[in-house]
């Protein structure tokens, strides 16, 4: 990596918070130009995220003590492989969502609010990924929740409002549980720094309780079965770019946090019983989400339940975490692949919904035939969700199965493979209407960008199919703690 040599001293991490935040402030102060600020911010953030990833790849994890106050007194920003990969994924998907929103929302009043809230959300997510302090993580988590809830409610109408309300309450429940855990940890060890905690945590009542409360609180937020019911209405009824952002990115945030905690803070507590419990829930989620996705009748709800199922995969994390050397990396790669693919699917769904004026799956055939690019995006990204080859999803599935088999955890391998079948069933159910007889119909006129963006994202999933090696190399530069 010759490019990293001259970047070695450059401090990048804070800028990934500053830039979107400035964008958000500008968009708020000058609403009429919100979308251009948004676009500019998206581009700048993507560039920064790329540079950060290169930097981390080249020189390893970067830990930055804010204000010169090193932990435990101050707060540290941690830009390691995991964080930079998540930031990069967010930036990539974020740019796509931004471009899409240009077409979807245009310069409407609702659009202005979207831009502002979306940039806030982005800033919050970046802040969360880069934070190395459990309390700071709580604050960023709340930022994410508030921005997300407001975005969900943006759709207006009774159902989205109720969905937003439920989302908010459930999220707050989760946040509170997390915060309780933070307090317990501080009470036990007198520090909030992730690395510091990781060095100290042992098996005893308070940290155990802390770990459990934090994890369950975050599980609620990441919608793991059976705590997922808030997700489908929220993701299913939001405007398309919002759905994409929520399903592709926001769900990953709490997952990331759980991973981060168990990687750096609680490795001592990863015990077989926990593996079994979480793995069981994960398997149930895969099954339940898949079945519900087969059952519901609206396009976006199918996609939302698909997220419920795919979240299940993410929580195969626990059985795989330390069982196999690359176990958690496989899960992270899965998260990235799912993020990109799910964003593509939601955006494509949004285009179809806008074109047809509804998203009843059974009646979408004509528009799907008329809007080929979008249908293709749906198909390719769907293939990634199923884990069909040459997509990121395939590599992710491969890695998951490989880790499971490497650790002789046959059962989880079967879950991964079987879940792929359910995914296949609902993805092809989505595509089915396109093959009904009858002429195509382009539906309402839409900006071209609403077709190109999903397609580009879908093609990105294919590119991810070849990104396994660099991504794993990046992930190898992640800080882990304790007995790992």
């Amino acid at each position, binding site marked *: 990596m010759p490019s990293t040599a001259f970047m070695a001293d450059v401090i990048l991490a804070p800028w990934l918070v500053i830039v979107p935040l400035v964008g958000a402030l500008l968009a708020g102060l000058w609403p009429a130009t919100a979308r251009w600020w948004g676009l500019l911010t998206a581009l700048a953030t993507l560039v920064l995220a790329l540079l950060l990833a290169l930097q981390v790849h080249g020189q390893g994890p970067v830990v930055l003590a804010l204000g010169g106050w090193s932990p435990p007194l101050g707060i540290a920003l941690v830009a390691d492989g995991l964080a930079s990969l998540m930031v990069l994924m967010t930036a990539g998907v974020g740019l796509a969502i931004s471009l899409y929103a240009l077409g979807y929302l245009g310069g409407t009043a609702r659009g202005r609010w979207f831009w502002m809230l979306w940039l806030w959300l982005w800033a919050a997510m970046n802040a969360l990924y880069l934070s190395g302090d459990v*309390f700071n993580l*709580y*604050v960023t988590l*709340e930022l994410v*929740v*508030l921005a997300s*809830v*407001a975005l969900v*409610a943006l759709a207006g*109408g*009774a159902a989205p*409002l*109720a969905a*937003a*309300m*439920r989302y*908010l*309450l459930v999220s*707050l*429940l989760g*946040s*509170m549980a997390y*915060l*309780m855990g933070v*307090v*317990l940890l*501080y*009470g036990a060890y*007198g520090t*909030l720094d992730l690395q510091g905690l990781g060095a100290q945590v042992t098996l005893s009542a308070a940290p155990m309780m802390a770990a459990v409360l934090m994890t369950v609180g975050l599980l609620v937020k990441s919608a793991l079965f059976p705590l997922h019911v808030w997700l*489908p*209405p929220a993701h*299913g009824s939001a405007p398309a770019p919002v759905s994409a952002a929520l399903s592709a990115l926001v769900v990953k945030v709490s997952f990331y946090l759980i991973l981060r905690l168990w990687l750096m803070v609680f490795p001592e507590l990863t015990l077989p019983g926990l593996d079994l419990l979480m793995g069981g829930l994960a398997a149930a989620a895969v099954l339940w989400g898949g079945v*519900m996705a087969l*059952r*519901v*009748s609206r396009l976006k*709800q199918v996609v939302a*339940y698909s997220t419920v199922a795919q979240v299940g995969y993410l929580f195969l994390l626990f059985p795989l975490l330390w069982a196999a050397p690359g176990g958690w990396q496989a899960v992270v790669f899965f998260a990235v692949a799912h993020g990109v693919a799910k964003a593509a699917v939601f955006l494509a769904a949004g285009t179809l919904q806008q074109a047809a004026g509804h998203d009843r799956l059974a009646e979408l055939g004509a528009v799907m035939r008329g809007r080929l690019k979008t249908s293709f995006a749906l198909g390719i990204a769907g293939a990634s969700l199923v884990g069909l080859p040459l997509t990121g999803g395939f590599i992710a599935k491969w890695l998951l199965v490989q880790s499971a088999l490497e650790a002789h955890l046959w059962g989880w391998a079967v879950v991964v493979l079987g879940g792929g079948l359910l995914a296949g069933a609902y993805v092809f159910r989505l595509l089915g209407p396109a093959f009904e007889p009858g002429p195509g119909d382009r539906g309402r006129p839409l900006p071209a960008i609403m077709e190109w963006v999903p397609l580009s994202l879908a093609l990105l999933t294919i590119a991810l199919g070849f990104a396994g090696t660099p991504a794993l190399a990046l992930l190898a530069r992640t800080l882990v703690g304790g007995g790992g």
Partner: protein
Amino acid sequence: MATDPVNLQIYLACGALLFVMGVHALVVRRHLLLKILAINIMGSGIFMVLLGVAAGGEGGVDPVPHALVITGIVVALSATAVALVLMLRVKAATGLARLPRSGPED
């Protein structure tokens, strides 16, 4: 300034109990306002434990938990504000300050 350990433990335990009461209320109460209050009660419980922790050390009161409590209060306040307004919007849209019980198909 060190506090009596027993008193401290009462603080801690009460904080924990408050937290759980909040959880229970959040679940059992159906009116949204009560749910929002329940979350605030959970928050209060947490802050109480935090303050108890701050006072527990030998070397004087730990200032960091105090700072955290202030921050936490502001965050909770923000969330509560949003929740309340959202509740009003839900009530305006559905006529009820309760969440509908409906499945995905309805």
